[in-house]
């Protein structure tokens, strides 16, 4: 029961702050709003039985990525958007289609309720995830991500460097 209250509270918080990300005019407020979304999502991961992902969410997203965003916002002295959001008939059509798709998806998910029984025993502890991650099945992909990070690091430095 308590689980459900916390879950729906966090879900409402995540949705409200996600709407704030889009609605805020100032990117700094958008960034803070996004941090609230990320933290409430971390709580939801914990409730869904994934403590490793919950901690990773705080450390990587709220810790590293959002600090990067805030650094860039402060560095560039971002001004508020002075003209209103984009509009146009094409955009309205796209928005209507996407809204219809969303409603359709929600109906399908709600209608398919109770299809697969949820296993009561679920072991997503950090040792279990680590054993799977470092098993031969995912080990090479894991090593490949380190090359990806290195490439992104070199690319970011090369892109942001002042030209001579």
């Amino acid at each position, binding site marked *: *029961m308590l689980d459900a209250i916390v*879950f729906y509270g966090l*879900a409402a918080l995540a*949705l409200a702050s*996600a*709407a704030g*990300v*889009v609605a805020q005019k100032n*990117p700094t407020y*958008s*960034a803070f709003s996004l941090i609230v*979304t990320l933290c409430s*999502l971390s709580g*939801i*991961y914990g409730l*869904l*039985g*994934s403590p*490793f*992902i919950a901690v*990773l*969410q705080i450390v*990587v*997203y709220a810790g*590293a*990525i959002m600090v*990067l*965003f805030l650094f*860039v*916002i402060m560095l*560039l002295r*971002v001004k508020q*958007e002075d*003209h209103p*959001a*984009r509009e146009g008939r094409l*955009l309205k059509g*796209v928005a209507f289609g*996407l809204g219809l798709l*969303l409603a359709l*998806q*929600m109906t399908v998910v*709600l209608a*398919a*309720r109770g299809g*697969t029984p*949820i*296993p009561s025993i679920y*072991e997503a502890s950090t040792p279990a*995830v680590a054993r*799977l991650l470092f098993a031969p099945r995912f080990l090479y992909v894991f090593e490949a*991500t380190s090359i*990806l*990070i290195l*490439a*992104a690091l070199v*690319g*970011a430095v090369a*892109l942001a460097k*002042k030209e001579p």
Partner: protein
Amino acid sequence: MTLPVEHAVLLSVALFAIGVVGVFLRRNVITILMCIELMLNAANLAFVAFSRALGALDGQILVFFVMTVAAAEAAVGLAIVIALHRHKDTLDVDAFNILKW
């Protein structure tokens, strides 16, 4: 009490939709990048929810890889934003039309 996984999936769908709306509506490049992060998070939530529903751990591993790619994307994306701001002195996406013809 078990949590309804369907509701977590619905939350993920709604977050993804909000992210898409943000990418379409906003003009600031940094806000658009943040909306992309929001969409990646929605995908992560779907992975965790389905991993819970199916009792398999592969979803957790995929979330790990998505986070890695998101970090790389944010670093490169923000570097591009800095380079663009240096050239054009604005962050409005409508000003970045140099590749159009």
